[in-house]
């Protein structure tokens, strides 16, 4: 027979579909992390992007997010140390530090966004569930982030 696929494979025709959604828990819209990154900085942006990568079934992206997030935090700590050693005006030092948190957060956000674009597109094809709202986790990550970043800033600035 033309186009015959040969003997049927019984394994292929065994029911295997589960009733659970393909994405459970549902991922967050990666764009929304911008607000967390802008107001919270590197740490919350990394937390949200890392968890979102896991939700999007992208362990490789999650690993990259974690490595980049830690590297960015280390850079931020170095920056805070340098500000502490070079800027005498305490108010100016705090202002630079806040600017660093914000700029660093937005920078890493765009980096994470480029890594999560593909997995998010795949989610959009499969769907089966709506994206989860980011309000609660975003606020939680923001809270953790500002505490960690404040601790790093104070520790390094006070030391000098």
């Amino acid at each position, binding site marked *: 027979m033309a*186009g*015959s*696929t040969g003997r*049927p*494979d019984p394994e*292929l*025709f065994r*029911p*295997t*579909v*589960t*009733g659970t959604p*393909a994405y459970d828990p549902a991922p967050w819209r990666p764009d929304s992390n911008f607000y967390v990154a802008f107001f919270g900085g590197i740490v919350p942006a990394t937390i949200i992007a890392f968890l979102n990568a896991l939700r999007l*079934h992208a362990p490789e992206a999650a690993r990259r997010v974690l490595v980049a997030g830690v590297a960015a935090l280390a850079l931020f700590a170095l920056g805070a140390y340098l500000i502490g050693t070079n800027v005498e005006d305490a108010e100016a030092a705090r202002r630079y530090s806040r600017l660093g948190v914000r*700029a660093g957060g*937005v*920078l890493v*956000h*765009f*980096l994470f*966004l*480029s890594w999560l*674009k*593909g997995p998010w*597109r*795949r989610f959009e*094809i*499969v769907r*089966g569930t*709506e*994206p989860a709202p980011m309000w609660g986790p975003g606020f939680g990550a923001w809270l953790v982030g500002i505490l960690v970043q404040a601790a790093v800033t104070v520790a390094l600035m006070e030391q000098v």
Partner: protein
Amino acid sequence: MSETFERLDRSLAQARHWLSMGRPEKVLDALADAGPAATTSPDAFLLRAAAHTQLRRWEEARQAAEDGLALDPRDHRLLEVLGIVHWNRGDRPAAEKAFLAGLQSVPEDAHLLARYAMLVAEDGQLDKAGKLASKAAAVRPQDPLVAEVRSKIAYLAGDTKAAREISAAGLAHAPEDPHLHALTGSYLLEDGSIGRATKHHLTSASIDPGDENLRDLGRQAKYLRNPLLRPMWFIEKVGPGKIWLAWIAIFFGLRAAGLVTIAAMLSLCYLVVVVYSWVVPPLLRRYYKLGKDDL
């Protein structure tokens, strides 16, 4: 008696014509004229179920498919529609049951194989999905639905290059297939080729105006092609992150060079672009009745 069947045949022919034109309401009108003989014809139930499916009336579609299956429980076409209906209602195990029952009747039906492949792919079983899609391709290598499913599975598996190639090859064989236009457009949109992407999306919506998803794509394409949104094409193509980085680099570069006034003017321009990108797209989305998830 023969007049009754002639009337049924005429109605079925009309209904098939309207279904292929993407006019499901006309399909139902034609079937209403078929007379009592329609209740004994699996084909009439198939067309009714397909029309309700196009109209996204899942309960009516399920009822029509099940009524048809009461006449012929092994009709693989009715089982395919029933599977699609269950799938769209979110009951994937029931969809699988229907597709497998259809495949038991006709194990080498390319459409059933392709649909079942996509269902298991959505369930995360990409290996099995790939095997089923290959089987479908072996039966009907140039079928548009098979090409669409193979492309989507390749994409889900992370092989975006193969996904684009399969979609392009499918479109070369079936240039009038709306779903392949839609898929090709979505890939181009991802590459930032908004002009070409929206052309494909508009074509897909015009080929099958009865399909609600394709109509949505057409509306999105019109939104993207609105002249007010043209400035955003560049930002989309380059990426807002890169533009932000470039602005920071240029701003601090100019300041370091002592060109503070130019740096301030540049900042103002950048601010205008940012405000424009925050204000205009949401207003246009509202104008085109698009939700936040639509793009």
